[in-house]
């Protein structure tokens, strides 16, 4: 019998036809039908091999396969489903690969090393930007010699416009890796440079890139790194700057760059190709759950594409959802997934506003976190909440939670380490799991229980997914080194 079924499947695979002769008992099953439809779609897929006019890379910082899974379930459950069956916009892209994210000196990477890999094509050490691995972190004297060409330099040299968008500070690791060369990711303002360090700070490098025509649009947070910190001098929100020397917002205005600092001024930005800088928060932009008075990531994505597409030669645009990572660091999955959904909406917006024939879209993460999923939860268990028992007589989970050996319920999602650790110093590093209810676990401020006590939950070195569509997207395939992403983008933009 097994042999007969195998033969029938082989026939189906070769023809994708309905099993007219050797009908299988399950052929009308909805899962069977859906998989057949998927098979037919993929069998008819044709790679696009013309030159990409535009390249967009969307990076959700810290959004590995596990974190993305949490966002998928959350978004699906918010939309009324069980969650598992939901498909995020990038999950419908035709091509996918796994990226190995390690830095040259770090099994567990940081965002500076990973951003450099994606935006320059070479892996490097943790904590450095736009330089190769010959530079030891913090050695300012070696920055120039170790510098490698970055995306803003490479794509502007092709005549393309270049844009960066991030919900983190624009001087933070991932967006900075598009345009900066720095011996340390923390050299964001001149006040962060150590004495005797003759390298320019990252904010100054951003303005230099605008002045040189290597950067045309930058929307995100981090205003304080552009504002002087003199007594009495504050930004639009009354917050002090961090710069010792030059006020870079004044410099931007002198250079004819249009400037916005909140959602109202953003709405007035010219999107006709005029260079644009938006600095919407003193530090990082707000989490999506807390957002007020500033544009969403999808809105910034729309502004960026409308502005950059004025260039007939196309554009390179790097978009980061920077705070997926920060919420994970806080062990606060409720905010992680809401920023994850905001990222998915930005992906959908980028896809909606572009054409597969001339725009390569890459969606990925720079690294994963120490997030894990546990227990045998039934369908529809809230991904932020308690693991509920599988219903053997139906689909949706029973109301009763699964219990651990301590007799207490537990959440499906957790972190291996971080602020939610149950071992505490005031108990001589002993501890027991707190009792937990569904209401507490799904609260916006809930921090998932964790084991190893650390002040901040950590990254992990496990693979992240790369999703792709558009010209040469079929080269996103297999398990690859993270810096390979740069090479696919560059190949697509230069193919003859």
């Amino acid at each position, binding site marked *: 019998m097994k042999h007969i079924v195998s033969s029938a499947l082989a026939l189906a695979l070769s023809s994708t036809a309905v099993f007219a002769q050797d009908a299988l008992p399950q052929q009308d099953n909805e899962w069977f039908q859906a998989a057949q439809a998927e098979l037919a779609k993929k069998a008819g897929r044709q790679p696009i091999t013309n030159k990409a006019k535009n390249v967009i890379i969307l990076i959700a910082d810290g959004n590995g396969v596990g974190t993305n899974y949490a966002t998928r379930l959350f978004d699906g459950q918010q939309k009324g489903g069980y969650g598992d069956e939901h498909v995020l916009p990038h999950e419908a892209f035709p091509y996918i690969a796994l990226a190995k994210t390690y830095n040259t000196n770090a099994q567990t990477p*940081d*965002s500076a090393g990973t951003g450099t890999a994606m935006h320059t094509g070479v892996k490097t050490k943790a904590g450095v930007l736009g330089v190769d691995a010959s530079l030891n972190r913090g050695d300012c004297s070696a920055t120039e010699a170790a510098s490698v060409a970055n995306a803003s330099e490479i794509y502007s040299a092709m005549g393309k416009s270049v844009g960066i968008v991030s919900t983190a500070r624009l001087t933070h*690791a991932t967006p900075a890796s598009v345009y900066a060369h720095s011996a340390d990711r*923390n050299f*964001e303002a001149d006040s*962060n440079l150590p004495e005797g360090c003759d390298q320019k700070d990252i904010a100054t490098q951003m303005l230099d890139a605008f002045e040189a025509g290597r950067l045309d649009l930058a929307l995100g947070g981090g205003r304080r790194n552009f504002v002087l910190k003199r007594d009495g001098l504050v930004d639009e929100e009354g917050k002090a700057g961090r710069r010792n020397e030059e006020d870079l917002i004044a410099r931007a205005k002198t250079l004819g760059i249009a400037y916005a600092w909140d959602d109202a001024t953003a709405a007035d930005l010219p999107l006709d190709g005029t260079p644009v800088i938006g600095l919407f928060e003193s*530090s*990082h932009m707000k989490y999506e759950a*807390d*957002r*007020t*008075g500033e544009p969403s990531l999808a809105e910034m994505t729309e502004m960026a594409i409308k502005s950059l597409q004025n260039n007939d030669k196309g554009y390179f645009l790097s978009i980061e959802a920077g705070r997926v*990572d*920060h919420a994970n*660091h*806080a*062990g*606060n999955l409720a905010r992680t997934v809401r920023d994850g959904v905001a990222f998915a909406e930005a992906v959908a917006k980028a896809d909606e506003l572009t054409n597969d024939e001339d725009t390569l879209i890459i969606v990925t993460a720079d690294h994963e976190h120490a997030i894990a999923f546990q227990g045998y939860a039934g369908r529809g268990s809230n991904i932020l909440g308690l693991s509920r028992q599988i219903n053997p007589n139906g689909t949706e989970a029973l109301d009763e939670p699964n219990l651990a050996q301590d007799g207490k319920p537990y959440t499906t999602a957790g972190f291996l380490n*971080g*602020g*939610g*650790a*149950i071992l*505490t*110093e*005031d*108990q*001589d590093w*002993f501890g*027991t799991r*707190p009792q937990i209810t569904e209401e507490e676990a799904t609260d*916006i*401020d809930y*921090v998932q229980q964790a084991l190893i*006590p650390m*002040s*901040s*939950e950590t*990254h992990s070195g496990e693979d992240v997914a790369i999703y792709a569509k558009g010209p040469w997207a079929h080269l996103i395939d297999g398990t690859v080194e993270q810096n390979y992403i740069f090479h696919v983008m560059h190949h697509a933009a230069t193919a003859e």
Partner: protein
Amino acid sequence: MNRRHFMQATGSLLLATPFGPLAFAAEAAEAAEGTLKLRTLYNKDQSFSPLAKAMEGQRVSVDGFMAPPLKADSKFFVLTKMPMATCPFCETEAEWPDDILAVYTKRSYTVVSYRRKIITRGVLELGSYRDPDTGFLSRVRLSDATFHLA
């Protein structure tokens, strides 16, 4: 008694002592009025919420986490809505979140780990105040406060 039971027993004894009968009175009040969440004192734009304004000058209960104290043997600590994680990859230096509550305790207190949820009870004060010992500038405080583990 094995070591684990001993630790648990001494732990609960140590933690129960500083709060004394005050804790029972506080818990009774919480049961009657409910415990506020720290975030309900602020609007999204960090202005004070109507609830905070309505409760100003009254004795209220607020839950949260004790940030690692700025100064030893103090009667002052900062309550945060989530465990006060410091993230070297997020920030170039330690920074306070926007929505915090300064707590001035009635008595000297024993420090509780920043990971363990506590419930504080005291008189709600609004407006800027700079702590003379630590220089910490607060916008909202509880004064004459007590607390206990949640």
